């Protein structure tokens, strides 16, 4: 078996002239890969005769680093799952071969890379979720501004994730930088600290440990805009209404991109795969599989996503290069404010 696999790999490497391969390799982060089943790329295989092999490669950071390390002899033909926070590094390492997707016109232009080095496939908004029942029982108004949270009553029921150990935690920290600017963001955090904000190390702990919905003591937790629909879809008993809601203020938009890996012998087929991933057919499956939003604006959203969440109209975002240059310093500053 190992020999067969090895020979296939060697054979693939040697037949550079071959126009269409039998298999394309798609390297992706674990959360994407674990959502792929036989049906995911079946339409693509039907149309082109090419099967798609998905290779999980750890978290988004590990994915980009592995692609960079194997640039001379790439592990795959296409990479999916690089987000804003790691994009700049991937571009610096020059691992992508530019490709202008035939479907790029369907995407919100603010998500598109001007040089077509990467293609946006989906986006997810990191937002405060609130426990509806808790706010009702306590007769409190749901805050709609980050400054509202500075009141003790609210700050003490807020849980955020640590930016150094959690991806939504980092996203929310970036949101505060975008909202309050480089001059003001740390003041906001200092006030939140004094008012008693809770910091969890990762999303699981925050959501399943600290959220009042799961028996914790925080009714406001940094999660995703897609969490309320997920609560409905994965509920114990069918629900009419989502038990949680999304606060639009302070949402941060994370965009995930795909790119052709430089060095693939099949750039054309790789491009077709990316076009497929941006097609309505593939895009409409995205929300219910990965709980993020399709980049293609023509893709219809499932009913649960229409009814139980909102897509923030003006989410915060920061320039990938700015993030790459300052992230480490920002995290250190955040730590020195929050942990002294």
């Amino acid at each position, binding site marked *: 078996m190992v020999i067969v696999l090895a020979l296939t790999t060697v054979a693939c490497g040697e037949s550079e002239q071959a126009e269409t391969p039998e298999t394309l390799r798609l390297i992706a982060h674990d959360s994407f890969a674990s959502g792929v089943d036989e049906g995911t790329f079946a339409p693509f295989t039907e149309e082109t005769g090419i099967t798609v092999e998905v290779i*999980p490669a*750890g978290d988004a950071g*590990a994915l980009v680093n592995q692609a960079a*390390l194997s640039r001379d002899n790439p592990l*795959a033909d296409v990479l999916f799952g690089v987000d804003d926070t790691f994009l700049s590094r991937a571009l610096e390492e020059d691992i992508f071969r530019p490709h202008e997707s035939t479907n790029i016109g369907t995407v919100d232009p603010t998500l598109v890379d001007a040089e077509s080095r990467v293609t946006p496939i989906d986006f997810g908004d990191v937002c405060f979720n609130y426990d509806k029942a808790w706010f009702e029982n306590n007769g409190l108004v749901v805050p709609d501004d980050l400054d509202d949270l500075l009141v003790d009553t609210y700050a003490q029921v807020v849980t955020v994730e640590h930016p150094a150990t959690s991806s939504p935690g980092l996203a929310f920290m970036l949101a505060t930088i975008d909202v309050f600017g480089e001059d003001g963001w740390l003041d906001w955090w200092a006030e939140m600290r004094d008012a008693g904000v809770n910091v969890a190390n990762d999303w699981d702990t925050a959501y399943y440990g600290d959220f009042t919905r799961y028996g914790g003591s925080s009714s406001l937790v940094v999660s995703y805009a897609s969490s309320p629909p997920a609560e409905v879809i*994965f509920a114990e008993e069918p629900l009419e209404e989502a038990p949680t809601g999304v606060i639009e203020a302070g949402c941060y938009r994370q965009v995930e991109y795909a790119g052709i890996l430089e060095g693939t012998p099949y750039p054309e087929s790789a491009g077709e795969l990316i076009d497929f991933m941006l097609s309505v057919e593939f895009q409409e499956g995205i929300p219910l599989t990965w709980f993020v939003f399709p980049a293609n604006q023509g893709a219809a959203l499932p009913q649960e996503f229409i009814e139980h969440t909102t897509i923030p109209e003006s989410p915060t975002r920061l320039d990938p290069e700015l993030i790459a240059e300052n992230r480490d310093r920002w995290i250190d500053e955040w730590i020195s404010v929050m942990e002294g």
Partner: protein
Amino acid sequence: MRRIRWGWLAVAAVPTFFIGYFFVYPLARILVLGLSELSIGASGLEARLLRVGWFTLWQAVVSTILTFVVAAPLTWAVSSYRFKGRRLAMAMATVPFVLPTVVVGTAFVALGWRDSIGAILAAHVFFNVAVVVRTVSTLWSRIDPRLHEAARVLGGSEWEVFKSITLPLLRPALAAAASIVFLFTFTSFGVVLILGGFRYATLEVEIYRQAVTLFDLPLAATLAIVQLLGVSAALYAYSRYQERTAVAWTLERGTNLKRPRGRTRFVVAAAVVGTLGALAVPLTVLVGRSLGQNAYRSLLTDDRVVGTPISSVWNSLAFALGATVLATLIGIMAAAVITGRSGSLSRWFDLTLMLPLGTSAVTIGFGFIIALDWPVDLRATTWLVPIAHALVAVPFVVRSTVPTLRSVPAATREAAAVLGASPFRVWREIDLPIVSRAALVGAGFAFVISLGEFGATSFVARPGLATIPTMIFRLLTRPGATSFGMAMALSVVLALITAAVVMAMDRARIGELGAF
């Protein structure tokens, strides 16, 4: 004598190739790459290095001591007495060892144990009690009871006999267990990240942060070397110690367990119930949270996202079987090599085999990426998973077999050789029967290590077969009441499989007894 030498070389070649190609070579490649980009004069490096290094060291030492304290009563009970539920007790103590860190982390957080050094130490003890209980009891239960009886008859108190007879005989196993627990806690990653947050970074956490999040390979490589040096120093001290203290005496082929009588019954019961009770606290939380919501039925039926969660069980079992066979074969060969020769060569070989346990998973994972594409591209193939698991599991097979092999008196082998047995025959007739039982313990560890899937595989591209831990991770990162319940339920299934495997192994060992 020439024949012996060739035989030794042939046996040595297999583990040498394995450790050389799959560990030393990738490690060297990634460290060289990292250091070649090193720019001198990074600011604040020393202070941080010192802080992280010091924390890594002291928490590992304290964790190891605490693990021994907690494991002692149970180890004593299962090593000395035969009682109802003994095998079950051993299996239960092994369960924590295999649970994914993220699951245990969730249970600890639910208990309110978090964001503190106490939570980290408690979790380290929870995970590693099995290492002490299993490694030490293998040797302890086979000490000739006549030694003990003779000493008692001569007037020694129970404590004096333990101190001057049992304890010295146990030293090799104690040192072996201590070295493994120390390595595990010295390189602790998930526990520190989940329960300690950013405040308490071990070298392992810092290497991950530098390599993966900041892509500062030079700094990551520097830290990895510091970690390697620390691990090597500990291992070197251990191997010197072991050579000094190994005592050759006749081990019983079977276990020497007696029924507890009189007051001893209560002491044994208290020891077993007390230790297991402590381990059961987080497990109870886990089971409690898995109940309700029809979580178990959903494991079989819920295919809303990529197959049913239960399908991951078969993938995990297949990988675990592959890793176990690989690790056991290589481990036994390695143990034969280590005990067949004394002196520095054998010591260095032993040390190198142990190193993967103490090397940062990110470093090995990234090393695979740049090194294993020649002569055949093994990267991202199915084989990488059992190989990576076997790298971590081989030391367990070696650790559990070397002390046993060392205790075979040289005179026994020499007598067989004088009687005309070939070296291979000597090994087969004398060493193998003794070693096979000890190897089973190692194989058991290899199997559960692979089931729990920690180590380098989390950081390398690998085929997309969902294993139990990756499925749990997937369910845990999805909001919704059933997702959480299913993640907990699947963790309980993992725990049950572990217990079943361990009990089957222990039964096999007992069954084997009848053959003699």
